[in-house]
């Protein structure tokens, strides 16, 4: 399990390589990248991600462990960035590897749904109209309650 909270960008190819090298039992790797989205209605110039440093890795590790208990996973990587990020920049990377694709898909989506509602990160958007905290979406809570 590889859990990281960092300001710098991540290299998805290298992370997948690290997981799959010398592990020919892995048949399926599912990855998720979340990016700073900029929609035309209210242009987002950048975003600042704040977090609760003492808790963040612990929360992500706990989510990844829950996924490992539910599905037969060979590897899990979760990398979440903090600090100021520009529009289009990657925020989060989740990689799940398994012998079978269904387990890898389900676990990756589960981790994202839990991360969105249980990991202590908060986004402040910087727009041309000023700064504002991003509101939590009910749809994320509903997505999480499926599992």
């Amino acid at each position, binding site marked *: 399990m590889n859990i990281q909270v960092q300001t710098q960008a991540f290299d998805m190819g290298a992370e997948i390589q690290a997981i799959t090298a010398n592990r020919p039992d892995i048949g399926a790797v599912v990855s998720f990248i*979340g990016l700073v989205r900029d929609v035309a209605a209210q242009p987002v110039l950048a975003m600042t*991600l*704040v*977090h*609760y440093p*003492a*808790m963040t890795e*612990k*929360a992500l590790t*706990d989510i990844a462990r829950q996924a490992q208990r539910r599905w037969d996973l060979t590897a899990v990587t979760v990398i*979440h960035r903090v600090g100021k990020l520009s529009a289009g920049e990657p*925020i*989060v990377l989740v990689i799940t590897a398994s012998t079978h694709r269904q387990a890898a898909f389900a676990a990756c989506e589960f981790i*994202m749904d839990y*991360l*969105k*509602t*249980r*990991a*202590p*990160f*908060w*986004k*402040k958007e910087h727009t041309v109209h000023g700064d504002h*905290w*991003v*509101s*939590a979406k009910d749809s994320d*809570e509903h997505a999480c309650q499926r599992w």
Partner: protein
Amino acid sequence: MITLLYFAQVSEQLNINQEQLDLPPDTATLADLRHCLAQRDEQWQTVFNDPRLMMAVNQTMAKAETAINDGDEIAFFPPVTGG
């Protein structure tokens, strides 16, 4: 002594990041502490009466009925928006 941490909108609304205080008497659970903090003034009442307020005790998500003890680190924050 307990440590209280406030994050994001909660921190801005209350104009505080962190404080330490003696565990108030008859404060066995998070619900008790919340009730106690809500008395401070109108702004604190607004924040602590919001049913969406999230809480963690010793870096683990917690609920109203979670027990609190001397030495705990207790955090209050709005719904999370990472990912």
